[in-house]
């Protein structure tokens, strides 16, 4: 595949970063495992095996990661949990990325008084304890998964809006845009060739970080018992169950804990690598 100018440079810079590449590999392996996991192990994620309650990782009965207090297989549950966390993370991020980009682009494009008003409200919102607001909404309006997406997504868009707005604002005044206008390029061509590629860099970087933030937040809510409900599993509920069994059955905590830590660290490495590759400046 032949990439145009700035993307080829970015790809070359990205490939020189070891941590970012390793992060990408880990994320893809975990996602792949989460998808095919249930088929490579004979156990079901909610099947109770009363003969093997809280056994340590073993090859007997294919309990590769052991079982929990109810004899449910932790290999299958951990992968089902990873899948739930990834799905919620992606959906909620998509919501906050869409809101953030449209809000930021409108504010940056319109400029002036409307921009001022829109960004002032973002400023006020980011000063509020929005995390508590989400806890509130999830507690009050039940454990409907749609509320979970919406409320997590509603918190994540502020940073994205600020970044996209700043980028749009400064892009409009850059020399290469002026040069493009002067050389007679059409508005569509300017947007397609010059504005979007330059907007895309920061968006990709912060989208990666938003995904890690939302996965973290979902596990936080599930840990508090406000997110995914039994018998469904997410990494947060599994960690919460494991934290109570730490002394007698540490693997119940360690397996989902390590997966979540790996996933979040990899996403952060990937985000950092992309930031370097796409040469995105903070703010």
């Amino acid at each position, binding site marked *: 595949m032949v990439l145009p100018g700035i993307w080829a440079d970015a790809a070359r810079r990205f490939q020189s970063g070891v941590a970012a590449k390793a992060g990408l590999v880990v994320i893809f392996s975990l996602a792949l495992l989460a998808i095919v996991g249930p088929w490579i192990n004979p156990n079901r994620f909610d099947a109770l095996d009363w003969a093997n309650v809280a056994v340590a990782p073993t090859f007997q009965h294919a309990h590769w990661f052991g079982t929990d207090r109810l004899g449910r297989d932790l290999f299958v549950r951990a992968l089902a949990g990873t899948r739930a966390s990834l799905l919620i993370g992606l959906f909620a991020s998509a919501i906050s990325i869409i809101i953030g980009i449209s809000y930021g682009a409108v504010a940056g494009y319109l400029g002036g008084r409307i921009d001022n008003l829109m960004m002032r409200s973002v400023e006020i919102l980011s000063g509020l304890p929005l995390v*508590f607001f989400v806890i*509130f909404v999830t*507690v009050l309006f039940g454990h409907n998964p749609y509320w979970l997406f919406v409320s997590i997504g509603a918190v994540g868009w502020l940073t994205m809006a600020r970044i996209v707005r700043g980028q749009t604002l400064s892009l409009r005044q850059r020399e290469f845009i002026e040069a493009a206008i002067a050389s007679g390029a059409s508005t569509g061509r300017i947007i397609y060739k010059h504005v979007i590629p330059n907007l895309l860099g920061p968006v990709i970087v912060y989208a990666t970080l938003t995904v890690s933030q939302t996965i973290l937040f979902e596990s*936080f809510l599930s*840990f508090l018992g406000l997110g995914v409900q039994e018998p469904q599993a997410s990494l947060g509920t599994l*960690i919460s169950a494991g*934290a109570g069994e730490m002394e007698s059955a540490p693997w119940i905590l360690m397996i989902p804990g390590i997966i979540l*830590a790996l996933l*979040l660290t990899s996403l952060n*490495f990937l985000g950092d690598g992309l930031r370097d590759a796409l040469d995105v400046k903070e703010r």
Partner: protein
Amino acid sequence: MSIARAIDTLILMSRYLFKRLSAAIPTLFIIITAAFFLIHAAPGGPFDQEQRLPSQIVANLDTAFGLNQPLSVQYVRYMVALAHGDFGPSFKYKDYSVTELIVQGLPVTATLGVLAMLVALSFGVMMGTFAALRHNTAPDQATMLLAVIGIAVPSFVLLPFLGLIFGIYLHWLPVAGWESGSIRHLILPVFALALPPMSAIARLTRSNMLEVLRTPYVRTAFAKGLPRYLVIIRHALKPALVPVVGFLAPAVASILTGSLVVESIAGLPGIGRYLVQGALNRDYSLVLGMVILYSTVLILMGLVVDLLYAWLDPRVRLN
């Protein structure tokens, strides 16, 4: 600085403080109002329990707590009581007022939070400075690797792991408990709370320090033969800390959020549990009290940040 200028600064600062504090009151008012109607809009009430009470008793309780009145009347009554400093009775902890519950739990949460903040700031700045001085060497890369992991791994994963390693396997520290604030019981929860903001502060400090170290005035200071530590402390540290100050408010928010889970994992008798439990129990006054408390802390933190900006960076003016 002459006395006249000092008085001028003082007047400027108190005028600024007054302006900011009076701007905070409408914000707080909106938060309380939104929270009030949100929690009352939720289905269920404080006296819906698993064992259903006879409806006559529920009706009596509703009358006693004024819950049978129209919502607008309840709202006005709540706000009037609040203006007199009364947070009302807790609906669930029957013998306690919300104020009593907060007064009991706040010292624990505050100790935990303040210690975590101090640890995050001091170690974060030290780590960042250290890494910047050894730019592009193995120690720098190792510190930054640790920092990325620290940002990524949340405290509710970290704390059980630390408990497993230092409590259950090594027997060095207790896994849980408060024991009226003994230091040994505090080490693990404080560290678990401090690590995410500490890592973020380390990264911020490092990148700013790298920029400051390249400025001409720092090179001048080196050139005139000042020892390295003096250049850092006297000239480089203050400007390098400006962006760190901007991170203080998010850091406090992160520690407050973290304390909700860390207290429950470590079995600490703080106020962290009241927010979620209160909301689940529809303990209206308790939830509102917690929302007011947390919002006030965050708003005050924003004010502290602006004052610190003005102190660290002479180009920032208070107006």
